[in-house]
């Protein structure tokens, strides 16, 4: 007697979900739209959260002048700046500003927040890009390898290594990398994004982007490019290895999961070789959950970037945000938070598109 309702044996394997009911097909664009619109509540909540959190931590005037001025003088300045008004008044004022896309000027340095973002954003972006590169180049092949050799010594070694990468605090790793590769071996510069001469050359560009790699290319001077790239190596490795550890784990788990699916067995029964099974059949479906998680990793990566940026003199958003928090520069903090929220939301958005590209079930 046959049964229809055999429980899907690979229901837990993400790639082998049952196809969605037909009624949901064709709405991918709409899904993306909704996903995109979700950016706004996210930003709104973050801004609100940060607004009230920051106000409870004191004001920029005390931060800057607390060591110089007496209480009356401080109170006077605070009143002049309007910080003594009810919080909600200030809050709605700020929201109003935001609605007109006016991010304001930083309180401590009087620079337009947009300019601050344009200065420090590219640095963080470059750092995250390079470390993702490292993470991909190291994490994914090793993940495949460990999946292939699962429960063999190779597997154990790389997994422990991956956990180790995760367990080493990034600033500690950075310190050690610097000592070995900069001070001792002198292979790479100690810190910073470029040396003085390279930076000066890039400064002369009329249309500089802030992305040093691009700027270096525009100078047309290979030395500048080499200089910029050599500066990126250690930070990218420090942050990249951490991420690579996470990727390795992810790839391994998911590839092992897909290796256990029927379609891998089916391909094997067609005479497909083991390596090809790994590379084609197991890897690609496994990539879908991996890509999704990578999207979620972006926020984590930005966190890691804070420490990497401090350790390696890499003047990016995370680093500058810590400074702004310390100096209670509300406006700057809020502006950067908006940008971070947008980045995370856009990343997830892009990740969905990439996932759809990999997974035809979503695409159609």
């Amino acid at each position: 007697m046959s049964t229809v309702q055999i429980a899907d044996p690979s229901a837990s394997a993400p790639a082998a979900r049952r196809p969605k009911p037909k009624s949901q097909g064709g709405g991918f664009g709409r899904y993306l739209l909704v996903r995109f619109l979700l950016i706004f509540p996210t930003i709104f909540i973050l801004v609100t959260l940060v607004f009230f959190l920051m106000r409870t931590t004191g004001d920029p005037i005390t931060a800057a002048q607390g060591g110089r001025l007496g209480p009356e003088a401080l109170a006077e300045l605070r009143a002049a700046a309007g910080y003594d008004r009810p919080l909600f008044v200030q809050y709605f004022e700020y929201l109003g500003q935001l609605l007109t896309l006016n991010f304001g000027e930083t309180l401590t340095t009087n620079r337009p927040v947009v300019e601050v973002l344009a200065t420090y954003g590219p640095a963080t972006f470059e750092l995250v890009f390079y470390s993702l590169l490292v993470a991909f180049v190291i994490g994914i092949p090793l993940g495949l390898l460990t999946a292939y050799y699962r429960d063999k010594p190779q597997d154990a070694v790389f997994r422990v290594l991956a956990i180790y990468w995760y367990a080493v605090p990034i600033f500690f790793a950075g310190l050690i990398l610097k000592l070995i590769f900069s001070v001792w071996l002198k292979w790479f510069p100690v810190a910073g994004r470029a040396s003085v001469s390279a930076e000066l050359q890039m400064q002369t560009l009329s249309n500089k982007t802030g992305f040093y790699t691009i700027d270096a290319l525009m100078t047309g001077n290979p030395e500048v490019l080499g200089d910029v790239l050599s500066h990126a190596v250690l930070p990218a490795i420090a942050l990249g290895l951490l991420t690579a550890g996470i990727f390795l784990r992810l790839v391994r788990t998911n590839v092992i999961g897909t290796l256990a699916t029927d379609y891998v067995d089916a391909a094997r029964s067609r005479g497909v070789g083991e390596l090809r099974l790994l590379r084609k059949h197991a890897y690609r479906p496994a990539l879908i959950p991996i890509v999704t998680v990578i999207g979620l990793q972006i926020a984590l990566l930005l966190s890691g970037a804070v420490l990497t940026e401090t350790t390696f003199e890499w003047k990016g958003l995370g680093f500058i945000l810590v400074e702004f928090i310390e100096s209670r520069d509300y406006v700057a903090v809020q502006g950067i938070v908006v940008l971070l929220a947008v980045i995370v939301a856009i990343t997830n958005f892009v990740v969905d598109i990439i996932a759809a590209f990999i997974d035809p079930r979503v695409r159609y």
Partner: protein
Amino acid sequence: MSTVVDIKNLGVSFATDAGAVKAVDDVSLSVDRGEVLAIVGESGSGKTVTAKTILGLLPETATTRGAVVLSNREGTGEHNIIALSKQKLREIRGTDVAMVFQEPSTALNPVYTVGWQIMEGLRAHGTISKAEARAKAIEMMRKVGIPDPEERVDHYPHQFSGGQKQRVVIAMALVLDPGLIVADEPTTALDVTVQAEILDLLRRCRDEFGTAIVLITHNMGVVADLADRVAVMYQGKVVEEAGVQSLFAAPKHDYTKALLAAVPYVGHGVARALERAAARPEGWGQQTPLVEARGLEITYPGRFGRTGFTAVGGVDLVIRPGEVLGLVGESGSGKTTIGRAIAGLTKVTGGSLKVLGAEMNGIRERDFRPLRSRIGFVFQDPASSFNPLLTIAECVAEPLIIHSGVKDAASARAKVDELLEAVQLPRSYGDRYPHELSGGQRQRASLARALALEPELLIADEPTSALDVSVQARVLELFAELQREFGFAALFISHDLAVVDLLADRIAVLYHGRLVEEGTGAEVLGAPKDPYTQRLLASLPVPDPVAQAARREELRRLREAV
């Protein structure tokens, strides 16, 4: 005729820390060219393991004894699979032997086009240009009956229906023209109507391509339909092997006899239903129905503002006290949806549904809750309908605690024990956790729980679909007995006409969310009026090779007529 595969004294053990565990014990079988060998046997008897051995697909933990000698299609070469190197194995897989899997949706890689997957097998064996491979893939898809193969070759698996997917899987198996196809429950996941088509296709494989087939199945109807020879496995051994006709006509081994006896036949229930109808008291037909649906409509809301999906539309049905209504229909036709709506689990979105006098359309949970004690529900999957963290006794006691004011499971124990015995479970089973029971035992416990409050109405959603034939037979029997004893009305949902026929007073046939036919078993099964019911009936392979051959003809006529 020469032998394609010759299995000699095969023994398969799985190596574990605790020593070897034997799955297949001294099995000898052989399949000839162009022959269909069916392997039947109860679950866990080693069918799949045997089949996988033929392809050398066993996991590394397996150790094999004996020999599996496979010859290629031309009969020019022979290989003992068991002694073959990995590389050699890879070469003969696909060319000498291919496999068709049970669940077509999981046997296809979702992220590659079906064409790509068919071509992959071709390219794995020898050099063939892309264009050639593609041409071959298209041709093979056409041969297995996929319309517009030129276009469909670039489609992804999810764009095919279940039956089409299985065709693609078969195409993949056929494309290298292997001498042998191993099909492990190739139709289990499919509706009967689709199953009939796939069986047809497999038959054509044998007839047109001369391919030998090892067919593994639980379904004696399928065996009767397709097999030339049958091997019956029991606890890792082949206990009986015979030609299909002689096996059905004169089973020798006790297990075979029991197995055949447990298989339900359509038509067996008619007499019983008549008996029951006759025994009904006067004026029974005038009693207020327990369930009354008028133009019932159930729409599942769409996500992200998409239009919803109407799973059930315009259904009228009635269940009177003490009556068993059987609800059949293919997968996705809305059976479960109706059952859940009656139990108040799914919102009714249109029409009217009266359950125990309450109008379900727009009812609030709070108002319905008191009525729940009068309704019992038996879930399809007995394993997951129990909280894994509670003992059976606690689970069965739950309705008592909720409704009869019993304080806790301990104080309800006496009643629980009674109930367990009523469903023929020893009292001691009450102290076990659900996972410590077998499927059949769990299903009985599930019945016990549903009956705890002696409900007037029982909804059973495919309560036996997860069970083995023999276990199913026992549970069905028990159900019938209990129904006689307690006299509850029931909605019995199943996709299996034969099962429904056994129990139901009346049968309702659902098709695409609509009720296409309703009547007594004799009416619906004896003289179906709706073309869908007709097709359904004709598609159902009867577990009798002679009768099935005749029905096959009938079905072919019916299809041609459409």
